[in-house]
């Protein structure tokens, strides 16, 4: 098979030195004048940090924005659940931080699989984000002197994380939400809540180029199909971690919009890069619906360990002893042992794999053998209970509500869980997908985190895209669209798209089988965790692909959706999303299978060092794997965007010394 290499110019990386690219871009991009902005409509799907911030900022600029969310209010987007913080290269702590260092840490944390120019831009605008959020009234934590406080996160040796208790995502989202509200009040943004995008509508322009011009939505309250048109469409619908059924994502998080635009020509990049977060509350049973994350910030003061002796682990598993009964000398602080330089603050992928390694060897500490301790007794002895409570009180309380264990007295139990997806829709430097006029922002795109995302960088990327990148780059596109009048939703392209969606829904409703949507979704989750999980093998992935294809057949034979299609129908919503998750699962497995190396969140057991560390293959895999949809039932085509590091010397990641 001939290799498909994306032409470098498609990535639209501006000329000039790395540090000057974004400045150059802004200096030379096309702009839209205020009178014309009023004539241009933009659809933003998603109201989280990326979508909400983009909608608000585009509204401020004077565009007419239509913003959509599946929740009952834009304030409920899952960005709200981010706990720990947001990175910025402010160097307020005088610990040697800089834009370059944040850029470097992010590239390194991403295991050298991210685009240099994008990441540098991200680091560059990180400081503006903090300024913007403070101006909005986001109550970041402060020192007694009145300046902003910082804490450390994984993968960095500086304290550059800004936080608002354990609710940083909430506060940043509410900041974006408040800006959005201001624009709604002004009439620049129209908000459509409880709407789910089910397709994007492409219309050919005079030169025969297909451009994104609208979307088809299902009104989740009335069940009606709705059509909306615009000059450009922004998809900011988050990640697809719920393909695993159990994840830290909210119940409604889904990859539907991503799959729809993938079907319409947007390429899906690096789907196999899924982040498994090391500090989640362990699974307790079959009926579990969701996993709860305990913030990475806990690793600032918490120490992770398992027993040194297998017999102690056995007794813990049988519930005969408690963690605090094991003497200090019999504890294995395995992260501190393996990675002395970073200790408990190694990046997430490293920490997760290390936990899995210990548990696979039988050292797990709970009934299922799938948990390790996160212990605060040292911190409590050193700082006092009050200081610990002040820093982590709400997290401890949350842990206690869920597990009925008091973390002040007995060590927390944690285990890795699916948390974030670095992969996503391929976008160029302008955040435009391979479809003209179709943009993708936030977790939904693939752009900045490479193969692994560092803690506190998701909030940074979402807001960077929403506040500071997309509002500029989209103008470069819209400047050529000022002559294009508003579109009628009666155009045949809309009717056709709506019919296709309606047909699919009717087909699902017509199955009337005997399996509930959740039971099928759980089956998908098992396949994904088993075969496309933390440790992947060629055989496992091939088996996974087979099972996924069977699951799709089962879906079409067995699924049962009660109720009617033309009214509120939660099961139908879930069924439509499940079909897309199955497709995402296949993409992930296919991508993981082709990527014969281990990097970041993608760990192929065949490719590891003797010490069990990930082994990259830069000679053969230093590229973004972009999957192009070739039609139903056909294998997608792989395209490669070669990664070209000019500024950074590519090395093996080392968190040991």
């Amino acid at each position, binding site marked *: 098979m001939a290799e498909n290499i994306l032409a470098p110019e498609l990535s639209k990386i501006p000329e000039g030195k790395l540090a000057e690219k974004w400045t150059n871009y802004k200096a030379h991009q096309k702009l839209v004048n205020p009178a014309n902005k009023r004539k241009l409509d933009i659809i933003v799907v998603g109201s989280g940090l990326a979508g909400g911030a983009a909608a608000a*900022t585009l509204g401020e600029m004077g565009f007419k924005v239509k913003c959509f969310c599946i929740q009952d209010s834009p304030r409920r987007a899952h960005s709200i659940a981010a706990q720990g913080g947001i990175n910025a290269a402010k160097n*307020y702590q005088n610990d040697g931080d800089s834009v370059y260092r944040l850029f470097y840490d992010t590239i390194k944390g991403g295991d050298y699989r991210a685009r240099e120019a994008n990441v540098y831009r991200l680091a560059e605008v990180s400081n503006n984000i903090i*300024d913007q959020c403070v101006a909005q009234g986001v109550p970041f934590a402060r020192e007694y002197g009145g300046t902003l406080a910082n804490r450390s996160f994984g993968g960095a040796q500086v304290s550059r994380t800004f936080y608002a208790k354990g609710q940083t995502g909430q506060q940043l989202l509410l900041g974006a939400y408040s800006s959005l509200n201001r624009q709604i009040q002004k009439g620049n943004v129209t908000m459509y809540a409880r709407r789910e995008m089910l397709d994007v509508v492409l219309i050919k322009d005079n030169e025969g180029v297909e451009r994104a011009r609208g979307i088809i939505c299902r009104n989740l309250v009335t069940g009606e199909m709705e059509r909306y048109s615009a000059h450009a469409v922004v998809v900011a619908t988050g990640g697809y971690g719920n393909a695993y059924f159990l994840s830290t994502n909210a119940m409604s998080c889904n990859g539907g919009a991503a799959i729809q635009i993938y079907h319409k020509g947007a390429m899906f990049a690096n789907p196999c890069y899924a982040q498994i977060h090391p500090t989640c509350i362990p699974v307790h049973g079959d009926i579990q619906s969701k996993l709860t994350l305990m913030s990475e910030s806990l690793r600032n003061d918490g120490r992770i360990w398992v027993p040194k002796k297998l017999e102690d682990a056995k007794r813990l598993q049988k519930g005969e002893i408690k963690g605090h009964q094991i003497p200090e000398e019999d504890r294995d602080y395995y992260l501190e042992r393996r990675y002395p330089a970073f200790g408990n603050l190694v990046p997430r992928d490293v920490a997760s794999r290390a936990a899995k390694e210990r548990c696979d060897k039988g050292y797990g500490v709970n009934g299922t053998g799938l948990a390790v301790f996160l212990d605060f007794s040292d911190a409590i002895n050193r700082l006092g209970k009050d200081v610990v409570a002040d820093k982590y009180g709400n997290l401890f309380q949350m842990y206690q*509500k869920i597990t009925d264990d008091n973390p002040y007295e007995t060590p927390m139990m944690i285990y890795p869980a699916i948390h974030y997806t670095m992969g996503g829709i391929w976008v160029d430097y302008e955040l435009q997908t391979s479809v003209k006029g179709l943009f993708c922002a936030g977790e939904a795109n693939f752009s900045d985190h490479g193969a692994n995302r560092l803690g506190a960088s998701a909030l940074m990327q979402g807001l960077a895209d929403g*506040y500071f990148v997309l509002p500029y780059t989209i103008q470069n596109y819209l400047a050529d669209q000022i002559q294009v009048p508003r579109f009628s939703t009666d155009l045949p392209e809309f009717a056709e798209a709506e019919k296709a969606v309606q047909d699919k829904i009717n087909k699902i409703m017509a199955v009337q089988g005997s399996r509930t949507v959740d039971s099928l979704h759980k089956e998908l989750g098992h396949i994904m965790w088993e075969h496309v999980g933390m440790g992947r093998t060629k055989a496992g992935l091939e088996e996974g692909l087979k099972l996924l294809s069977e699951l799709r057949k089962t879906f079409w034979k067995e699924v049962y959706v009660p109720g009617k299609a033309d009214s509120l129908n939660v099961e139908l919503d879930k069924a439509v999303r499940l079909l897309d998750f199955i497709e995402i699962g296949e993409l992930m497995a296919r991508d993981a299978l082709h990527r014969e190396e281990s990097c970041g969140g993608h760990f192929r057991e065949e490719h590891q060092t003797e010490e069990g560390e990930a082994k990259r293959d830069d000679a053969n895999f230093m590229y973004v794997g972009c999957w192009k949809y070739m039609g139903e039932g056909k294998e997608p085509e792989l395209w490669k965007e070669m990664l070209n590091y000019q500024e950074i010397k590519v090395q093996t990641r080392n968190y040991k010394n």
Partner: protein
Amino acid sequence: MGKENFLNVNVKVWRQRGPKEKGEFKTYRVEHVSTEMSFFEMMDTLNEQLIQKHEEPIVFDHDCREGICGTCSLYINGRPHGIDDAITTCQLHMRKFKNEETITVEPWRSAGFPVIRDLMVDRSAFDKIQQAGGYTSINCGAAQDANAILISKVDADEAMDSASCIGCGACVAACKNGSAMLFVSAKVSQFALLPQGKVEAARRAKAMVAKMDELGFGNCTNTRACEMECPKSVKISNIARLNREFIKAKLAD
């Protein structure tokens, strides 16, 4: 983890097809419920049973299931978010219930929150109140350096406490007056405490209260039921601050 036990419970649920239709209670039995399950996982189990019997599942709002998004909104056994303090419904666990207990589950009841179906209510009124003034009027891109504004830790912490409101509506659901004062005051307080928000504090307080009144929420009579039920422990000192801000603004007119 606590010790796992198993319960049989009877769940008495409000079923209502639409905002205009009449609702009624229906009782369902759920057996072998683990005490380690969350309340929603019990509801999921119940819904699976209903779907298997080709009945329509019970509709309720929920999303993050970790207590922060504010979507979940069940009134369980006489309390918004159920029988525990400082939690959302999704953080309620079955260990809080007894074997053979009948659990009554109702939607938020308030004129401001019409029922959409079953236990799902429409809380868009909260968005409208926020749109009336719950922001600082600054545009993206022009902000000064974040450390140029010094804010005392005490004020920042207090603003954070106010800002932790998740907009779930438990305060309204608990209030015998259907008042939204705790919700409105949390936002007004957050901004009133911070220099960034002080600039338009008067306008904000007036606009948000006017919108709250217009949308049919009741008058606060200081019963404090709201703060007892707030999952984020937002305090009525916020309401005092809102009153102060509002009265000050009106007296200055």
